[in-house]
């Protein structure tokens, strides 16, 4: 693939800009829409750069098979699945070991944020389907899943918000894309927080990191997560205020999300838009960069 004389890539140029023009602490554009699936109790569609993920929440309902039921709390079953066409090579539809591990750690990352003890002997099923990907799909899936859980009206302590940070060419950067993940010295570190309490609910890392680099990366991640969380809240607020929602409230018997007031206190981000990928602005979608 690589010819020996290939020019060395400049991952962060003299102006501090990355291959795709982003600053080192700038995420790719993120758009979040809550409540997009009619047959799901809760749902969320999220675009994060090229990543596109659709999440459904089904339940709470009876835990099956019965012997798996926990009399003290609901099971949270998380499934991360990539569409066959969501990667450069076709993904075999049968889940692999990576899919199974990601499903496990993302499910565990969400558990503490949900009042599972409200639903003994039940299960809540979260399905995250990746439709297009370019590094960072698990952070996208987890961030969307937390919105879908809130959309399902399930009582929660806090939202879970995720991002990946890492290193390319010696620089700590946020939200690596595929090119950056392929840097010779690349490090990739997905994190998820319940940001109110700064609790870490997901933390993984691949690569060679010094303690100092980890500290720096962690700080960048925390800052970035604050911005992303505002988009999650905005998406939920938009859903709650939308006309469709109001109509649905009147007409449907379906359990509807109550306004999660503690989540919606803060205002929306007012940030400068600075992005390369041509992204349509839609009134009802939240964006960040």
């Amino acid at each position, binding site marked *: 693939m690589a010819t020996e004389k290939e020019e060395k890539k400049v991952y962060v140029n003299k102006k501090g800009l990355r291959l795709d023009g982003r600053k080192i602490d700038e995420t790719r554009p993120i758009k979040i829409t809550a409540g997009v*699936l*009619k*047959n*799901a*109790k809760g*749902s969320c569609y999220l675009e994060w750069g*090229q990543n*596109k993920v*659709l*999440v*459904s929440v*089904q*339940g709470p*309902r009876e835990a099956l098979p019965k012997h798996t039921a926990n009399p003290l709390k609901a099971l949270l079953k998380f*499934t991360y*699945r990539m*569409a*066959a*066409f*969501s*990667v*450069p*090579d*076709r993904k075999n*539809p*049968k889940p692999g070991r990576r899919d199974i591990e990601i499903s496990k750690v993302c499910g565990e990352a969400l558990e503490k944020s949900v009042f599972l003890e409200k639903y003994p002997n039940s299960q809540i*099923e979260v*399905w995250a*389907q990746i*439709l*297009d*990907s*370019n590094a960072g799909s698990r952070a996208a899936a987890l961030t969307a899943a937390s919105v879908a859980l809130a959309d399902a009206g399930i009582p929660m302590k806090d939202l879970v918000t995720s991002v990946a940070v890492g290193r390319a060419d010696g620089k700590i950067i946020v939200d690596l894309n595929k090119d950056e993940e392929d840097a010779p010295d690349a490090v990739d570190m997905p994190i998820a927080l319940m940001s109110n309490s700064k609790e870490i609910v997901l933390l993984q890392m691949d690569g060679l990191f010094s303690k100092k680099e980890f500290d720096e990366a962690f700080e960048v991640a925390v800052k970035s997560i604050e911005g992303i969380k505002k988009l999650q809240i905005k998406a939920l607020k938009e859903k709650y205020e939308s006309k469709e929602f109001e109509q649905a409230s009147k007409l449907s018997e379906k359990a509807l999300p109550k306004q999660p007031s503690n989540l919606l206190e803060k205002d929306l981000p007012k940030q400068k838009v600075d992005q390369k990928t041509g992204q349509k602005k839609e009134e009802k979608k939240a964006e960040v960069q």
Partner: protein
Amino acid sequence: MQKDMLLDFKAEKVVTALKEGKRLDARKVDEYRELKIEKDIYQNAEGSAKVTLGNTEVIAGVKFLLGTPYPDMPNEGTISTGMELIPLASPYFESGPPSTASIEISRVIDRGIRESKAVDFEKLCVKQGEFVFIGFIDMYAINHDGNLFDAGSIAALAALTEAKVPKVEDEKIVKGEYSGKLKLKRKPLLSTFSKIGNTMILDSTLLEETAAQARFSVATTEDNFVSAFQKGLSGSIKKDDVDNAIDVAFKTAKEIRKKL
């Protein structure tokens, strides 16, 4: 698969209304729901589409891989078609290996495309007897409100019409480069009917499907061929039902084809 017990109850209303020739959503028996087709929506797919048919939503994507040809068809590539019924679309769809229902849908859509010779398999030959393209058409049910057969068929065809064929160098696919667009020789589309009582209705909702005794699908092409039939479910249909279905199918597919 579990089932929504309420559906059976509501299904009786469908039957009662149809006795007076009425559908609960006021459509005519041969009327399609509103159809929306979005194309080329995913970058990693060689072609992709999202179809919204009333409240039913299906996504399709195409990938081309290199493979070796069948010994008896050394200069022909092939396609492989599959639809997954995932829990996004219905609380009654389960995780796990493909269900019998998803295999039937997949194979009926596949036959409609394959047997109409929509894709020129010889054009998918890279090096005779050694390398050919296998086109994978993968579909995902996103919201299930009935008639996944037709929604899938439209999505598959829409994704194919946009699909780019990868460039090949040194017997390997060059990532992100393409030799051109796939050319389709025909545009076959499925039209699926439910038989409820003595009435055949086109494009059923999930509720109507619950009330149906039999299902019948017809794939038609723009040059006036039928390219696939599939009768399903435990009920029966009559020759008249088939004749009527074919007529409606030609008309319907013609309209849909304009939106591709």
